């Protein structure tokens, strides 16, 4: 009995021994090939590496988007006959279209990265303040870019600003207006945080203050806020950091003086230019785009090329001259925003504020570079028509500008109905991908799908 008492004490002792150390013993540290956010953002070089990563999908999504949106509008036609591609050509997307999903997916994956960076870097004290600001500014810029695209493509979209997965997986859509307000907020903040010089290596492949200003100008334009749009565009133009290149063949080269933000892609600048050395180009310039070039427009000869196959002439975009896939150093980067667009934004803003001569001057700057005479437009209406037409010719295949413009000018149905038999007014917005709706009970579909 004594023994039972004596050794009976061992049992609880064993229990205590087992349990006190338990919590610690069942936990592990991360392995050396994985880093926790505090480690990533506690060190300058890894924080910079995480910031550069924000742009990796951004490049992919931009290239894909340009290709598909070109065929969806009146810029491109394609020889591709897959159902994914045909739906874009006909202007009748279905909810299961994989490209519609992939654009959505890549944009939100990038938003996640930006949110993770902002959450991870915020509490860190050890980083040099300017570096930390730059990283945060980049994240704000990238997030704003993604939402700007999302709103233009899908309309109302879920506004995801954290990495909280359980909450995000049930996110509902926010009104486009509210999302754009957030875009403007992020860009204003980004502008404050970013340096005027290009960060981390000096290449124009990550946003600086002027890139944020340029995107801000576009965002204000979306809101028809011409005062602010013009002011932002003016800031960039008068910064003196950029100038229009007289040689049109160099407008898309890497880090050229006109470029404000370019995207780096390991396999070359543009997937559009996958022109076979012989044979019919997969992506061709549409007759509508071809017609938008006035006689004598140098862009028609510098940025469009043609090939004759079996006696027929095929025109294809030639803004990027390097062929895919590229070996060796990249001579061209995919250009997202350049100075010419800001002249056109400022011009349009001036026009809307009744500064007709200022508008005419900006328009003529672009026309002159294209080898065209000064505009003959005199009235405000004529000038607006001229600017629209100039945007079509100057900014084709860039950032989805044509699609966004057609909606902004409310001419999308008028322009696309005649050339796309299945076009409906609801086609102005893409469908929300069906796969998303299946996985998020609170997500609703756009009208018409």
């Amino acid at each position: 009995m004594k023994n039972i008492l004596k050794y009976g004490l061992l049992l609880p002792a064993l229990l205590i021994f087992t349990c006190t150390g338990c919590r610690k013993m069942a936990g592990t540290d991360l392995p050396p090939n994985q880093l926790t956010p505090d480690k990533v953002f506690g060190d300058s070089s890894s924080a910079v590496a995480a910031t550069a990563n924000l742009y990796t999908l951004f490049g992919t999504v931009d290239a894909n988007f340009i290709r598909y949106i070109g065929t969806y509008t009146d810029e491109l036609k394609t020889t591709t006959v897959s159902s994914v591609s045909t739906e874009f050509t006909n202007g009748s997307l279905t909810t299961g279209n994989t490209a519609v999903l992939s654009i959505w997916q890549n944009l939100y994956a990038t938003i996640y990265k930006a949110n993770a960076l902002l959450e991870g870097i915020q509490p860190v004290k050890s980083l040099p303040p300017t570096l930390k600001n730059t990283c945060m500014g980049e994240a704000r810029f990238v997030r704003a870019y993604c939402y700007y695209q999302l709103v233009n493509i899908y309309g109302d979209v879920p506004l995801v600003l954290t990495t909280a997965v359980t909450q995000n997986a049930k996110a509902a859509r926010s009104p486009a207006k509210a999302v754009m307000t957030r875009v403007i907020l992020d860009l204003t903040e980004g502008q404050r945080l970013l340096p005027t010089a290009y960060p981390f290596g000096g290449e124009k492949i990550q946003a600086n203050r002027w890139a944020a200003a340029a995107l801000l100008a576009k965002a204000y334009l979306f809101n028809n806020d011409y005062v602010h749009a013009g002011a932002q565009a003016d800031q960039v133009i008068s910064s003196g950091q950029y100038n229009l290149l007289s040689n049109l063949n160099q407008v898309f080269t890497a880090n050229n003086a006109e470029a404000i933000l370019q995207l780096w892609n390991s396999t070359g600048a543009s997937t559009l230019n996958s022109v076979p050395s012989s044979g019919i180009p997969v992506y061709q310039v549409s007759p509508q785009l071809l017609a938008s070039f006035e006689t004598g427009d140098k862009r028609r000869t510098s940025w469009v090329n043609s090939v004759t196959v079996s006696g027929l002439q095929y025109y294809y975009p030639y803004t990027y001259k390097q062929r895919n896939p590229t070996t060796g150093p990249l001579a061209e980067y995919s250009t997202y925003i350049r100075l010419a667009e800001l002249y056109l934004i400022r011009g349009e803003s001036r026009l809307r504020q009744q500064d007709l001569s200022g508008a005419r001057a900006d328009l003529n700057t672009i026309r002159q570079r294209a080898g065209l005479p000064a505009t003959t437009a005199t009235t405000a209406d004529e000038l607006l028509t001229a600017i629209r037409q100039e945007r079509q010719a100057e900014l084709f295949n860039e950032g989805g500008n044509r699609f966004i413009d057609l909606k902004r000018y409310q001419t999308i149905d008028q322009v696309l109905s005649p050339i796309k038999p299945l076009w409906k007014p609801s086609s102005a917005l893409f469908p929300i991908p069906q796969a998303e709706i299946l996985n998020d009970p609170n997500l609703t579909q756009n009208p018409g799908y």
Partner: protein
Amino acid sequence: MVLATLCLFFKLPAQELSPHFSQTLSGKVTDERGKPLPGATVLLQGTRVPAITSADGTFKLFVTVRSGTLTVSFIGFQKASIPFDPSSTAPLSIQLTPDLSALNEVQVIGYGTTTKRFNTGSVASISAKEIENQPISNPLAALQGRASGVLVQTTNGLPGGGIKVQIRGQGSLASGTDPLFIVDGVPFLSTSPYGSGALNGANGIISPLSIINPDDIESIDILKDADATAIYGSRAANGVVLITTKKGKKGGDRVTIDLSHGISKISRISPVLGLSDYLKLRREAFSNDGITPDINTAPDLLKWDTAKSTDWQRYFYGKTAQVTTLQTSIAGGNDNNQYLFSLNYRNEGTILPGDENYKKGGGYFNFNHSSTDQRFNFALSVNYNKDNNHTLYSAINSGAFSIPPNFPVRNPDGSYNWDISNPVAALEQKQRSNTDYINVSTSLGYKLFPGMDAKISLGYNRYALDQVATLPQDSQDPSFDPLPTAYFSNSVSQRYILEPQLNYRKEISGDVLTALIGGTFQHVENTGYTLEGDGVSNPALLGNLGAANTIVNQINTYSLYKYVSIFGRVNYNRDKKYLININFRRDGSSRFGPGKQFGNFYAIGGAWIFTEENGIKRSLPFLSYGKLRGSYGTTGNDQISDYQYISSYNAGTVYGGTSTLSPARVANPDYSWETTRKLEAALELGFIHDRILFTTAWYRHNSSKQLIAYKIPYLAGFASYQANFPAVIQNTGLELDLKVQALSGKGLNWTSTINLTLPKNKLKSFPNIEGSSYANTYIVGQDLSVKKGLKLLGVDPQTGIAQFADINNDGKITTPADLVVLGKTSPDLFGGWTNSFSYKGFALDVTMEFVKRRYLGYQPLLGAYPYNDPLFVLNRWQKPGDVTDIPRASVNIVSSQYNSTQLPDASYGRLKNLAISYTPKAALLKRLGLKGLQLYINGQNLWVIANKQRFDPEISGGSGGVAPLKSIIFGLKTTL
């Protein structure tokens, strides 16, 4: 039975009672060899208070009679009745005879042992004898066809190749269905370190257990139900396989030398078309389509010699491999110390062309010590094995059967022919794998006071795999601009385990209470890397990393898994009639996030040995043993990657020419293990003194909280995250085990054992399966192995074109809309039948294994490409009027979807094992001065009955590995 009946009428003479008399009886209880038996029960008949023998086997019993009978009982021994009278003054010496009834054989269970008679759980045991009879190199192969509820399938027959063990069906969608393997108390790596960088050679994914020498194993015990497995908690959902190595035994030093030599061949050649049938098929394909073959589409018809034919199957797998094994051991010991030391060596040639081979060797040492007062004991087992596996870098299986009979290996200029992929060139790509394995297991025990033992077990296990694969330039297709390349891979898996335990045993008037409490601390560290070395100029230096121009780091992994638990068990045996067993385990695993690391698992099991009830004993005299048992409890499965709960960054895509860091995952801190609730009911019956034992067990395992990559909307950043999903998988089944000692005695002995399993698997529920990534894989209410495909309506007798059912009536055949369930591939039934005969010095053991099921067959190309087809395409449509279900030959692949003809019957019966041995008479041995001598012939996989037109039934679809090898060895075992 006669005896039993006699017993009922036999009455002991009434004892002479004298109320005033008292005396103390003393004595010693020993086993048949004279070794003391502590814990034996000594009871005076007619009384209820027994004495229990102490550590040295002695007892003292206070009695109030002059004479009477003592009943002495101990587990595993026959009950003895010892009369005493006033003349017996000296201490009684009682020697017990072991009870050879199969019911009393020791079964190893989690943290203890029991017997089949008193087990409340479901355990299948394989003995050393059954393992020794089989000429195998991977111990897991020994389980095939031997245990009910355990499906063992060879995925590759080459040395080191994979063997898949599944206990009671698939209970997990994505988190692994491997059981928990434990070798001498130390958890063993259950899957190949492939994921951490190890290479896959011609032998497929390496089965780590193949490094263990089967001859070092004393028993393999397979724990199946909740009662048996819950003590292993969060890792036990898929069952537990306990491997116990041999121990030293008391007695004079015995030296055993066991030498064997034999041969191995492939058990089955895949049946393919011969040259003329092949050429006919190809020509038919072109003429059916009205296409003129050209040199690019038909090199076999226009470029190659159409008269020259090679039997490629024989070319690649036709060789006979020589197998030599040597086992030596020395063992012995006294009451306090026993030891066993053994060495093993195995040299196996190859069936592959070339000089590949497999060598395995190592040593095993076991030492047991107990103090003279039996209070302290110490055990140590050390096992070190090493193997050297020279094989091919790539699996050639599909190359071996699909290569056209007239394929010329070389061009006229002597270079390799690359008109099609050249599997002969691939023979130059070699792979060498070296495994280094050490397992150390020690335990220290101390008897604190009678009935209370303290024990601490310590284990260490290291499994290291070092591999080099060499791919010379000319062995690779030149159109891909290959470089001479070599891969270097190294993976190490190490684990430490520490388990303190307290055992308590108390006998209270014939009832036995045992209790156990213990804890586990475990560390598992896995590291691995793979390097690629390119551009070695001199082929002789290809395996030398230093000679490579560029070195690419392909994979570099590290993970640490920590595990801590507390467990306990209480078992109460009331009157050897009623048993109750309660298990509990609280586990903490580092695979789960803070707050989710700990979980509780429990099981309750009970048994009623109803043949111990007098009423039943009387009314069912033909029953010698009858037990009804049942159990219910929970177990878990945590076979997922480490760190999934932590948000982290890893290397991302390059941007701007510099490397980046990318978020690795959406971390979910809120998931924990999969839970399987196991329910079992079983009836065990013994007839004619247990010469016939029949067990029938029914089980139902419900596995829920499935750990899957849970689909989330992309807007949350990633496609999925690791989470518990409320899908439920149900495995039910019936297991039947019958053992009949048909003949026994001095002449012919014959024992027959049959096991049969009838499993059913069902996806019981899966909320929102349509929206999940599993929508086209699984169907709620059906087996997890269902295969979908197009429904073949038939082949048009006029055109020879296959007609498929348009399920959604949209006028065209589309997928997945027109897919239907073709069937399932999990077995409907499997089992084994072993017959053991012995006559004088001769013994014969025959084991048949049988499985009834279907598999996803090989899809014939029907002449579309210059590749050969299985023999069954001879039945294809050839001319109008032919009625068949195989469409016409065509150069266009009609559909890559499986259809209803492509899920053929893959049932088989295999003569798994045939063992013949002869042991000379003792007199002869004495004359030779030997303690033992045995001559034997062991055969494995000697014969199979299966669909002759299809590939081997264990190698699904023919695209997997090499069919199991058949081998036969001759051996001589001498004991000095």
